[in-house]
């Protein structure tokens, strides 16, 4: 009674669908394509300082529809997010713990020194989502001349975001 032979007696193959291999390959190549894209990053990438990067990230995803860049995240020893990146359309913004690179959150210093403009496809839906997620609207949704429709909101640490949709 050899344990190895007994184990071998239980070896049983599972019939696999040959198409499963093709499906797996297609999924892998799609994934590789998506992973490759963030490497072709925009030439200018702003980085925003936050007191709490993790909370900022979930707010930006929830309220503004930004998406975290896979693999961008850096985590501290205590498990908190140290920095990460979010993307939206063809743009990208870094989020990082404040203090690094001499930059601080508006929540800490009490003022903003810049704001970021983001083009969106459907400003009304975007606005609704931001309001529903508790973003503080600091410039109400309105048409600016005949050029674009715009609103401005603060994120949860007071960074100012200007969202607009151009008229054709």
């Amino acid at each position: 009674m050899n344990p190895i032979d007994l184990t071998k007696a239980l070896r049983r193959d599972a019939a696999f669908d040959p198409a499963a291999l093709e499906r797996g390959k297609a999924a892998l190549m799609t994934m590789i394509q998506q992973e490759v894209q963030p490497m072709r990053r925009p030439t200018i990438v702003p980085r925003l300082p936050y007191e709490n990067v993790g909370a900022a990230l979930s707010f930006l995803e929830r309220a503004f529809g930004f998406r975290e860049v896979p693999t961008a995240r850096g985590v501290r020893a205590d498990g908190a997010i140290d920095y990460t990146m979010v993307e939206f359309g063809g743009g990208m913004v870094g989020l990082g713990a404040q203090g690094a690179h001499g930059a601080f959150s508006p929540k800490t210093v009490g003022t903003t020194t810049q704001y970021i403009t983001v083009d969106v496809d459907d400003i009304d839906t975007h606005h609704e989502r931001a309001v529903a997620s508790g973003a503080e609207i600091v410039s109400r949704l309105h048409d600016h001349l005949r050029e674009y429709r715009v609103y401005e909101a603060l994120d949860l640490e007071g960074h100012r975001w200007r969202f607009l949709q151009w008229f054709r």
Partner: protein
Amino acid sequence: MSDSSDAEVIGRSLSEPETFGLIYDRHAATLLRFLGRRAGAKIAEGLVGELFRIAFERRKAFDPSRETALPWLYGIGSRLLLKHRRSEARRLRASARLAADSQPTDRRMGAAALDARVSISRVADAIDSLPDEEREPLLLFAWEELSYQHMAEALELPIGTVRSRLNRARAHLRELLEPSGKKRMKPR
């Protein structure tokens, strides 16, 4: 590129990610069969996708001195299987039922196994009750026929550790299968 080693292909995939598709072409069928044997075809298809996603993301960490990436891929698969222990256990018992039914005609069983008054379902239970760190080398060795060197690469352990774990697995199985033996490993 098609006659390059896995290490060369993976090295190249760092700057040309699409090249990694070649690693899939070379090894996906083997891994799909491996995962299928362990967890069933359905789970295997999902796992092979996850396996290659992880491999792609970690390709930078692949040791370029290794001739083939297969053991490394086996290792990723082994760790993924830990989340599917229940399916594995179910499948092992189903295999035992099948093997018991076909015992007289299955040449792999051999007379020795029939002589041993061990029902094949007890073997399944015994394998299932081994600790993960012993079950994995046992199945990689007996089912996948990996060499010690390749098991060591897959499990990221020194070769001596693999050897001793496999020996422990053998000893545990013997113990669990003793006709009179009531010794049980910790219940799952």
